[in-house]
């Protein structure tokens, strides 16, 4: 493994870091669970459950009304069936919609008061909830440079946020970073103004369900002209059994601001599939920039397709201002089923949307993911780079839309979708939609599908690598363009994940 990782490690990263990341090797590493006393809402979904969640979060009436309206709409909607994923029908009445550790009944004032068991969970995951540490659990990395990069974390455990780090330092910069339940209480004017304006409550089946039952999530507001002093991060952990997680994230970047946001997720190994339906809304005013990175590592189910997370996510950025920039970067390695299309509505002139994605599906995993780039403003640009890797008996689909509206003069899109197949029992599919309604824009779409190149493998093998290492190296090379777009800490984790997810797929 040494040779493998030395090749890809960036300059300035010492051996300890490399080793720490390598320690990630193993099959699904985050499959343990935390044994803790939980408090559940009654099983199933009804208007009462929606009211209960709202009450637990001590929400104002307008919020409850919004939820109830969404719930009523959801009842009339039909589960979408167009994605190339196949899973047993979900019994929405056989899920818990709210689960919170008993110890969180009275919300702790600070992270110091949080149940040590919960804190341990995050320590074990390598997510530091201490304010001096950095992400990815790369011990010793602090000495690596003089000023370690700080990352503020919002830790979401099942249905509740445990707390948020670096609050004071962030508030000095005017940045609001808190759980969305706190934001509803403390910043109702902002939440009320923006919530549901990018993804309307009834946008789609899962978004609508989320609007009705979301229990927590993160809220970020970056004021005018502010560059967020550190990276922000939310770490989602599903722990309780038979429980769905429904979180909602709302990020508002005011004029001329910048924020880099990281999102990570894991869940214990369970035999029964669990539901995760999230919504992420990004709003950008003039000249704002948001970089949103995700490493999705939900439990993928075992090699026979038992268990795993059903991941139905709606993510959308609304570039309301001119000259804004959004960058979605995702590494999708987990989940039994992924249904996710982070999108950009390029409304403001000269705005720019980017989507970089690596989706890896192994064993019985199914991923249907991609992006939508809706060009409305003049001279808007978008770039899509998607790398899909299928192994085992997995199915991996890129599905996307590039739409140039008549008024989006002189806009530009470049799309590249590459698929790699490892083994002859998996599938790789590409379903792009291209709609061009003016002639001053240029749209280019390219897609290729191939297998791991034998010559490249042979070369690696001749250098003494075993077959799995060789495949991992070739795959890492295949993904390079996307990995490079990730923040450093994530890139390390992602590289390691690429190797782990493919383990056992050779031969």
């Amino acid at each position, binding site marked *: 493994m040494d040779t493998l990782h030395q090749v890809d490690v960036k300059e300035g990263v010492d051996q300890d870091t490399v080793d720490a990341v390598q320690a990630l090797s193993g099959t699904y590493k985050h499959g343990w669970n935390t044994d803790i006393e939980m408090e559940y809402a009654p099983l199933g979904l009804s208007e009462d459950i929606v009211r209960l969640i709202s009450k637990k979060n001590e929400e104002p009436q307008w919020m409850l009304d919004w939820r109830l309206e969404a719930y009523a709409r959801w009842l009339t909607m039909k589960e979408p069936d167009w994605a190339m994923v196949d899973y047993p029908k979900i019994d929405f009445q056989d899920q818990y919609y709210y689960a919170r550790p008993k110890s969180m009944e009275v919300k702790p004032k600070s992270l110091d008061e949080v149940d040590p068991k919960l804190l341990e969970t995050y320590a074990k995951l390598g997510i530091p909830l201490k304010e001096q540490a950095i992400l990815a659990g790369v011990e010793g990395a602090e000495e690596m440079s003089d000023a370690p990069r700080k990352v503020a974390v919002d830790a979401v455990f099942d249905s509740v946020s445990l707390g948020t780090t670096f609050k004071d330092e962030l508030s000095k910069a005017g940045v609001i970073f808190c759980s969305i339940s706190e934001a509803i209480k403390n910043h109702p004017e902002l939440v009320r103004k923006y919530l549901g304006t990018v993804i309307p409550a009834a946008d789609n089946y899962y978004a609508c369900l989320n609007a009705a039952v979301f229990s927590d999530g993160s809220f970020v507001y970056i004021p005018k002209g502010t560059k967020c002093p550190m990276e922000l991060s939310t770490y989602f952990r599903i722990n309780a059994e038979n429980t769905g997680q429904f979180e909602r994230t709302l990020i508002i970047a005011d004029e001329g601001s910048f924020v880099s946001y990281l999102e990570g997720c894991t869940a214990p190994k369970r035999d029964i599939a669990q539901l995760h339906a999230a919504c992420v809304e990004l709003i950008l005013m003039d000249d704002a920039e948001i970089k949103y990175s995700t490493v999705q590592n939900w439990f993928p189910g075992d090699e026979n397709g038992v268990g795993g997370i059903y991941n139905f996510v709606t993510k959308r950025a609304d570039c309301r201002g001119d000259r804004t920039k959004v960058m979605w970067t995702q590494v999708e390695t987990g989940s039994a089923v992924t249904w996710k299309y982070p999108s950009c509505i390029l409304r403001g002139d000269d705005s720019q949307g980017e989507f970089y994605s690596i989706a890896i599906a192994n064993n019985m995993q199914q991923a249907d993911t991609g992006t939508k780039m809706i060009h409305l403003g003049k001279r808007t640009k978008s770039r899509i780079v998607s790398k899909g890797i299928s192994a085992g008996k997995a199915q991996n689909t890129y599905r996307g839309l590039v739409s140039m509206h008549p008024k989006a003069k002189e806009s530009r899109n470049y799309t590249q979708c590459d698929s790699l*197949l490892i083994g002859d029992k998996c599938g*790789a599919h590409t379903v792009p939609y*291209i709609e061009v309604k003016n002639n001053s*824009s240029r749209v280019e*779409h390219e*897609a290729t599908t191939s297998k791991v190149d034998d010559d490249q493998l042979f070369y690696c093998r001749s250098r003494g690598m075993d077959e799995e290492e060789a495949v991992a190296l070739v795959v890492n090379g295949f993904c390079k363009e996307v990995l490079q777009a990730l923040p450093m800490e994530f890139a390390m984790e992602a590289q390691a994940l690429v190797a782990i997810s493919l383990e056992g797929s050779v031969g």
Partner: protein
Amino acid sequence: MALARKIIQVKQDATDARLSLLDLPDGATWITEARNAAMSRVKKMSLPHGRDEYWKFTKPDTFVQPEALKAPLFDNDEGPLWADVDRLKVVFVDGIFDAEASDDLSSEGLVIERLAVAALKDIHWAKDLYGVLEIRGQDAVQRPLAALNTAFATDGILVHVTGKVSKPLNLIYLYNSETSDVNLHHCIKIDAGAEVTILETGPGAARLNTVMEVDIADNSAFHHIRVQGRDHERRAVTGIFTRLGHESTFKSFTLTMNGVLTRNECVIELTGDNAIAHVAGACVGDGKDFHQDDTVFITHDSFNCESRQVFKKVLRNGATGVFQGKILVKKDAQKTDGYQISQALLLDDNSQFLAKPELEIYADDVACSHGSTTGAIDENSLFYLQSRGVPKAEATDLLVLAFLAEALQEIEDTMLAEGILERLNGWLARHGH
């Protein structure tokens, strides 16, 4: 859910309305069975609706509604196409075979019969082909208009190709009634080692629905060139359904010039090793009423096959071009070479191009790619030509032809290709600038 149910109802009602005006034609048992089965398929699927995924970019209403919309007759001022090419002409007027206008239907290497005649015979080879490939084409995607054709087509030709046919067979579609609503169904059976070229020309009908089922046996070849109408308001939906055996070849090229609405579907199944299928199209459209749609579905189900899709569209004054192309590579179709390109040249700001180039791949040792680009004419090239003394209008025409060249190159026969080029030049002269 309420909406979905409502659409299903609307579709059923529209289908019932259409079917109530149609009678199943008389015929022998073999074809009556095929027609009845096709009728049940139509009822089961219902005719298409704008909300159907497969009709996302093209409104099917005018294909579905009971009566065909009028397409006024016009004087064709174009010179004859392929005047110098020795062809066997088979003429249909308003959907009925015209013996006088047609050549003698006998030629070396093939047996031709009218569907209207064969349908009355108790036993016919076409029993194994009529509607059979159409059904196979319904597998992944519903094509109710093709099933409608199988049920109600009264005429067409049944061709059994037994050897290498020296001259092309030219199907010519004419119409005398401005509301002619025509279904033509052709079956082409090509024996091992045989080869044939089929040409389709003529203005068509006010509403033309053609289905051509082509069964290509091992080591045989099928060439197809089609020129679709101009300067009038005909609507056409066409379906080619083909199956290829070992080492066989299928090549099809279509030129679409005007007409109001055209949907060309092509469903190709590569079932024998080392088979080759190329399907290409050039389309030039002018005006906001122009809507042309190429929908291709290629299934690789055998070892080492090659498929190629080349579609080029030049659109102006608000014209719309659509391309939906799919390559499906099944699990055992290793060493597949699949290529697909769809490009549009938008000559002004009102025209549009809508595309869905799809890949669905279940075999690992394959090389499949697709590309799609859309844009305006390249200003630098235009400037270069002008700097060389070529007037702007002429330079634009040159660049349009250069853009279409990759599709035209798919025509192997140089004389046939020249005829297509003449037609294109004619269009440019009429619609330029």
